């Protein structure tokens, strides 16, 4: 934990604000790395340096985010800050952390299990990745607004919901196409598993957005 000047009324709060911002930055950057990693995987394969590089960066971001999360949680408790919203903020940070973990876990799974998506599915996989990452980015914006401008939270939540629905449509289409193909069943199941993992990221973003809607009502009241 960073050292605080005990004689300053504001330095502790400012540094915690910075840490929360950095945490949200880490989530946002992880999402961008995830988004960048998927076409590299599809095009160059898991063994390519360029994909490995993105994976390493994502793992590093996840680790940084974990440390920031621990610091934020400890400081919120020790200084007994925001008594009325502390539980909500802690839950929000935990839920967002789940998204970073899932991003890391999913990209690692691609690296370890190397599912082979036939070329005809690539566009839809990339489209699904696009919708999923858009929903997460909207979720990060909603979280940022929750800390500074509660009136704007709803606008971002609305977008999370929209992108999640779009992701569901692509997810359904991909599953249908995979199971309609002549691929062996074990491969169909393997590919379906990865489609589900990708879509779950959007579902998680939706869960965070739902919780944020409640936290916002509590904060605004």
């Amino acid at each position, binding site marked *: 934990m960073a050292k605080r000047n005990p004689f300053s*009324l*504001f330095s502790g*709060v*400012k540094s*915690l*604000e910075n840490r*929360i911002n950095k945490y949200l930055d880490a989530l946002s950057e992880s999402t961008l790395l995830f988004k960048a990693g998927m076409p590299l995987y599809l095009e160059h394969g898991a063994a390519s340096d360029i994909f490995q590089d993105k994976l390493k960066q994502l793992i590093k971001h996840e680790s940084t985010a974990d440390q920031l999360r621990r610091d934020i949680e400890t400081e919120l408790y020790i200084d*007994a*800050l*925001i*008594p*009325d*919203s502390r539980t909500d*903020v802690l839950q929000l940070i935990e839920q967002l952390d789940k998204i970073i973990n899932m991003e890391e876990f999913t990209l690692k799974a691609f690296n370890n299990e190397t599912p082979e998506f036939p070329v005809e599915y690539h566009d839809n996989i990339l489209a699904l990745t696009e919708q999923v990452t858009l929903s997460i980015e909207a979720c990060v914006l909603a979280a940022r607004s*929750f*800390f*500074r*401008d*509660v*009136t704007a939270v709803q606008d971002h939540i609305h977008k999370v919901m929209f992108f999640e629905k779009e992701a569901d449509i692509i997810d359904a289409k991909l599953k249908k196409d995979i199971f309609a193909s002549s691929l062996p069943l074990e491969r169909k199941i393997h590919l379906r598993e990865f489609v589900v993992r990708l879509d779950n990221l959007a579902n998680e973003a939706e869960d965070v957005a739902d919780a944020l809607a409640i936290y916002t009502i509590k*904060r605004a*009241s």
Partner: protein
Amino acid sequence: MEIIVLVFLSSGLFLGWSLGANDAANVFGTAVGSRMIKFSTAALVCSVFVILGAVISGAGAAHTLGKLGAINAIGGSFVAAFAAAATVMWMTKLGLPVSTSQAVVGAIIGWNIFTGSVTDMNALTKILLTWVACPILGGVFAALLYKLTVALINKSKVHILSLDNYTRIGLLAAGAFGSYALGANNIANVMGVFISSSPFVDLRVGDLFTLTSIQQLFLLGGLAIAVGVYTYSKGVMMTVGGGILPLTPVGAWVVVLAQSIVLFLFASADLEHLLASAGLPTIPLVPVSSSQAVVGAVIGIGMLKGGKGIKWTVLGRISSGWVSTPIISALISFMMLFFLQNIFQQTVYKPIHFQMTQEVLAQAEKKGLDTTGLHELQDKLYTSATLLQKALQKQSKLDYTAQIKLLDLSEIIHYQINPKKFKTLTEDFFSPGQIAAVKALANKSYDRAWKLSNALEEQSPEWKLKKATTVNKLFNKHLKHQIAIIMQTFEIEVDMQDQVLKHDTKEITLSALTIFN
């Protein structure tokens, strides 16, 4: 110092303790209830500032009136302070925020009833008005302020943590100022009675400062308040800060601010004077109580949010606490006076006598009072205000205000302008002209307060009250305070027993006779 003075002093300290236990909730209740400030922090800040307020502002001028209302014997003051303290302690035990000054008024009414003194009905009307006006004003201001604050927060887009920090600082600052005012405004109620019997001597700390005996006495009272805050105030704080309505930190701050604004706008004679002097319309002054303003402010925020979160049962308990406080206090006071006087043989009041002499009637006519039919009562000696009032009601058609005026004119109080006491008239409180006027009356005696006032007026126009206008209100208030200090300084005790026995004893009631025996 006599042991009995120490015993009497204990009830002042008890009242201080009760005040701290109950009234600390007005300044820190919402902060502690909303968990923004820890109770230990609130208690420390509150205690320090209460003591500072009591010692610096409360005893700043050595001219504090050493009387609790009209109570004229230390035994009576002991009972009144004890009755008020016991009532407030009871309410504190129930976790209810009540007004300590209303408990004191109740205790004084108990003393008035016991001694046959007339209670100024205005004091009762004021309490009734406070119960209604204060919560409404507090509520309206809190609702408006809350809307404004929320709009400002939304506009400024301040981070939740910075907002938390600002709110915390705001609550702490408001609490510190509130505590200072609490100490400064209430210490006279707690300790004022004991000024004349203060066991302390002035204490000089190097060349730095001198702690006067009054300051030491008030420090003791401040400490009693602080002990009350530390030991017993948490329950009431939780009622104010969360029992009526769960408050957000911003809501908690708005409540404290709304309470301060209501007190400043509607109870500040200084503000009224400032507005009147500038030719601006004034805000009518209404009796306010911080306990009642705080509760009103919390309800105001609750109503703004649709009223769903308000716990009406808690509010009902608080309201019944407000109504019962002066009543219980009066009852305890009355019963204790009875026991103290009849069982412990203590003097709980000095009998006050009333006599309408030719001079009094002439003065009454000068003041515009109709004295038709009153000559029948001339020169009769009455041993209590109620006896004379009854006689007035029987003999004339004077209204209540006129009766009270006539009672004041008839009250026998003896003054002797003793030159030995001139040294207490310091220029920090009296003008040189005023002091010269008092000195010119050296060795003269008076048997009515108005006679002394008139004599002072004749000596110097600086003792003359100005015309009763809003602009002059503050001047007249200060002058009345100065006159009261002069009267307190030069009042002497004269045994009225002989004079009473010479008069028609039919006018003396049984209770009055027991006092003389």
